[in-house]
């Protein structure tokens, strides 16, 4: 039976249908199912992240026999195509046509921003992957909860590590030239410079730059560290080209939570060896739930889960705890939302975590290093920063008085011409 269902799930994946309802084949004697809407990018350049998100959540559902806290799940997957306008339409469709109880996703910051007002208007409990800082800061949305991380949450930790443990003082940064990249680098720069380091160069290749050769040839000499914040396949591209231009070993290569993802690490291979990244997750984490998750992903999809897949498995864990806390009453939005915000996981795939008053996660940030185990490359965890909030060690009120992280804030004082 379960074999058969797996085939069905895979078939749905393969067809790439824009709307697919996954239903359990055996209906238990239960009232109405929990209806979950899933906003995914399944076409275009962001599709690889979307596919992994789907794999992560389906892995969770399969492991729980397609139920959450005893209630059957009816999942509706919508393809936003990575386009904010389409994302709005799909959000409306999920709520008004499919009457979902909770929405998962979206992937990209600009998608999350595009449906911000819809989430409020529908008062729809939403678990999001998108990093957009202000949705849990200055413009906090009471229905929006983020179990993964803000764009810069792991950047703070890797900056601390780069300065204190690697002893770097002079660094350059690069990331994709869009909101996520700006916020991601800003967090690194702020902590690194507050400790006494200097960011002497910031490179912003466009999201669809075909080639980084030009940027890498323009790197300043005598760098102690080079921070990369590229997302998706761009992480692979830049790490590989750093090696091709003979720059590997000329500085410590450090990065945020996107560039050296488990989904790409085998392809990055030798070129990434020794690189340090800060992330709230690693497929290497020893928590029992994570060992199970990694094993299931390897069984069904032949890959280690990366951060996109992990986020969506974590969605499942958060939902499970929230549905239990709300005694199954997902129909009452206020109760359900309160239950989500009140979730405290002690044994999730990322370890212990809970949410702050803005709905953003507080949990461990891990420093990982690319190492080789047998003939497989892994992100080995070499240091843990426990209980990291989105505000790092800064005072929350001070933090919120500053402008949101951007390309121009904090100002880069040490840039060399």
């Amino acid at each position, binding site marked *: 039976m379960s074999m058969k269902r797996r085939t069905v799930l895979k078939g749905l994946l393969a067809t790439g249908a824009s709307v697919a309802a996954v239903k359990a084949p055996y209906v238990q004697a239960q009232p109405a199912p929990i209806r979950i809407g899933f906003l995914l990018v399944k076409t275009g350049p962001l599709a690889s992240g979307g596919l992994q998100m789907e794999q992560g959540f389906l892995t969770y559902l399969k492991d729980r026999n397609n139920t959450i806290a005893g209630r059957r799940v009816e999942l509706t997957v919508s393809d936003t195509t990575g386009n904010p306008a389409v994302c709005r339409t799909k959000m409306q469709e999920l709520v008004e046509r499919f009457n979902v109880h909770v929405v998962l996703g979206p992937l990209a910051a600009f998608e999350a921003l595009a449906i911000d007002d819809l989430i409020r208007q529908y008062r729809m409990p939403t678990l999001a992957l998108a990093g957009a800082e202000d949705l849990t800061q200055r413009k906090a949305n009471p229905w929006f909860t983020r179990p993964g991380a803000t764009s810069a949450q792991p950047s703070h930790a890797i900056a601390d590590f780069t300065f204190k443990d690697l002893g770097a003082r002079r660094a350059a940064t690069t990331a994709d030239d869009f909101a996520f990249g700006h916020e991601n680098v800003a967090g690194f720069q702020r902590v690194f410079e507050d400790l006494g380091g200097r960011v002497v160069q910031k*490179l912003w290749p466009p999201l669809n730059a075909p080639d980084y050769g030009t*940027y890498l040839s323009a790197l300043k000499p005598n760098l102690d560290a080079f921070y990369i914040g590229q997302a998706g396949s761009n992480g692979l591209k830049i790490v590989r080209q750093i090696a091709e231009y*003979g720059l590997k070993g000329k500085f410590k290569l450090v990065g945020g939570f996107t560039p050296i993802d488990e989904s790409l690490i085998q392809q990055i291979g030798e070129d990434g060896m020794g690189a340090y990244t800060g992330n709230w997750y690693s497929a290497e984490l020893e928590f029992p739930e994570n060992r199970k998750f990694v094993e299931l992903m390897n069984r069904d999809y032949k890959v280690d889960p990366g951060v996109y897949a992990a986020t969506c498995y974590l969605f499942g864990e958060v939902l499970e705890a929230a549905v239990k806390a709300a005694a199954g009453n997902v129909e009452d939005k206020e109760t359900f939302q309160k239950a989500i915000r009140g979730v405290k996981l002690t044994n999730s795939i990322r370890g212990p975590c809970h949410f702050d008053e803005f709905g953003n996660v507080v949990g461990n940030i891990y420093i990982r290093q690319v190492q080789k185990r047998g003939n497989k490359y892994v992100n080995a965890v070499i240091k843990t920063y426990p209980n990291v909030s989105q505000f790092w060690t800064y005072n929350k009120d001070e933090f919120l008085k500053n402008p949101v992280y951007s390309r121009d804030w904090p100002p880069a004082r040490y840039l060399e011409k």
Partner: protein
Amino acid sequence: MQFWIVQTLNSVAFGALLFLLSSGFSLAFGLMRIPNLAHGAFFMLGAYLGATVVYFGGNFWLAVLAAGLGVGLVGIALERFILRPLAGNIQGQVLVTLGVAFIIADVCLLLWTGDPWTVPAPPSLRPPLLLGGFAFPTYRLVVVAIALVAAVVLYVLMERTRLGAMIRAGVDDMEMARGVGIPVSLLFTIVFLLGAVLAGAAGAFGGPILNAYPGLDADMLPLALIVVILGGAGSLLGAFVGSFVVGFLYNFGIALFPDLAYFILFLPMVLVLVFVPQGLFGRALP
């Protein structure tokens, strides 16, 4: 100094790749009067086919061959079964190539998933070439050499063979060419095939530099369009000069004025369109 040398080499290498991509595009555009908007998708398909052959243990050069032939087949099919029935309907032909581009892109996503496929350069070309204190990727220099060889071969084909003469006649004046008995519709197929093979091979050559990923088609097509608008449709020399001009503008634009990179890239295109609409080396199309 090193900065200028490396950036110049970068520009030349990127220009070389662009020439492989856009030479066939330009010839087909000049002859058939329509831009094949599926050309970027051909490039991407070539990159995926090449990556797949390498993935299954094939030799890199075999991968290039397979990509060229595979995409060539798609090209013939597109020309014979889709464009031919729409002969004379230029608008319809352009739109249908755009539709085919979307179809190829979606099929690629289905077959190769959303994850990028990386193609390692041949092992012997992987270590960077050390030139007096600075390093440059060896593979890129090889791509330059290949583009130069391709340029010479295409030049000989176009200027020194009967086939080339017929193609040039078709580009210059199709009515007259038909009138003197040149089988223009057969030329269409040949040139379209040539363009597709070149695009597929270029995709395979581009693999180690750009990777194969969803969206590669949309990244490359505008560059091919700029090259052809600058150089003039149907002109081999135009494609050659245009490719390297775009290569230099792109690289130095990014290196020196990163915020204006795309502006610098597209500005010459606008100027050329305003002042020399047929392109630097092109003939005004009737």
